[in-house]
């Protein structure tokens, strides 16, 4: 079952395009409400499954971070030919990919919304034996190890957490485990991004939870400190975990994102839009 979604306004009535990327082992389902909100606010929204996150579980064992980059770049290029304003946003791995697009396309990106950016795996949920991670990542053990989705599922709100748990048990909205091969690719991608953060010049909104269970604020701090964007806003949430789009402060995140998008729409028309008299 495909969980991709494209929400487009009829004609050319949108304010711009928002390209969304989901997180590691997630699916566009986790962006659905966010996407719907942005669509209702006048934006065309695009969210597709990342490579390795399709119907075959084993794909996550063979996917390379270059595949994710190629996917993100191609989707952005496609939208850029159609829209004056193209924003990129994502959660977790998706935020890292949004930054990758910002690094490659620089001024062409109208704006970036980076949610729970995962440049380091250092959240409080990770077990004490994470110190052995370098061994597991670089040996055959990475094909043996999967970290099971477990409490709190990145959600502080108990009601939502139980709903997420139920959905994950069904298994059709994302994976139940984090395979180590996926972690390896994410960390390699993160290393590449960390090295190139200074190339990000687009306006950016960074949102990260203080109590993020998967990645601490160290990641968001690194982004905030090292990017070259003059126009940047960094918000720390105090009542959410990793899944900021589903947690206690989701409305705040939605509103902040919308305000960011609305305030960064470029009003200048493309050259071909001018009519010669």
């Amino acid at each position, binding site marked *: 079952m495909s969980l991709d979604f494209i929400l487009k306004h009829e004609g050319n009535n949108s304010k711009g395009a928002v390209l969304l990327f989901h997180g590691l082992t997630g699916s566009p389902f986790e962006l659905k409400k966010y996407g719907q909100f942005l669509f209702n606010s006048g934006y065309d929204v695009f969210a597709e499954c990342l490579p390795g996150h399709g119907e075959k579980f*084993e794909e996550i*064992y*063979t996917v390379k971070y270059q595949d994710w980059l190629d996917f993100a770049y191609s989707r952005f290029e496609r939208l850029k030919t159609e829209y004056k304003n193209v924003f990129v946003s994502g959660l977790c791995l998706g935020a890292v990919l949004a930054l990758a697009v910002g690094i490659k396309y620089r001024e062409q990106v109208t704006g970036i919304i980076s949610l729970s950016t995962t440049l380091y795996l250092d959240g409080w949920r990770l*077990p004490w*034996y994470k110190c*052995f*991670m370098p*061994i*597991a990542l*670089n*040996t*055959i*053990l*990475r*094909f*043996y*190890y*999967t*970290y*099971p989705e*477990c409490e709190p599922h990145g959600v502080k709100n108990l009601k939502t957490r139980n709903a997420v748990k139920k959905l994950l048990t069904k298994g059709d909205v994302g994976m*139940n*485990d984090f395979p180590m*091969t996926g972690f390896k690719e994410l960390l390699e991608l993160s290393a590449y991004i960390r090295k190139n953060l200074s190339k990000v010049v687009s306006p950016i909104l960074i949102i990260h939870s203080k109590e993020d269970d998967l990645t601490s604020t160290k990641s968001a701090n690194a982004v905030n400190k090292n990017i070259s964007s003059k126009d940047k806003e960094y918000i720390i949430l105090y009542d959410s975990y990793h899944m900021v789009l589903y947690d206690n402060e989701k409305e705040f995140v939605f509103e902040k994102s919308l305000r960011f998008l609305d305030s960064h729409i470029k009003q200048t028309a493309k050259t071909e839009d001018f009519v010669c008299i």
Partner: protein
Amino acid sequence: MYLKLIEILFGVFAFILTLLMILREFGITKNLSPMKASDYVSSMAGFMFAYILFSFILATFIPGGINKIVLALFGFSPFIIGKLVTYQKVKTYSFLQILCVILSIVFVYAI
């Protein structure tokens, strides 16, 4: 005296690692809960770390140039295999890794 102790520790860690890997190949983790299976593989990572560490310690203190090189190679073997392994060939490389660890035990106790 110290060398003997290091050899014994190396043997113990290598033996446990081999055992854990063989049991996994026989599917022991399939009967465990996801969290327990995850802990099982994590303990393998711990023993692999100890195996690598003691391979290098032994390579430092053991007499003979060739012996040092061979032990260092055994120490590097998890990383070399880790570099070569693909999802399609996990079984083959698992077997190779187990063989490497067993050979290293034989090597250390034969010299």
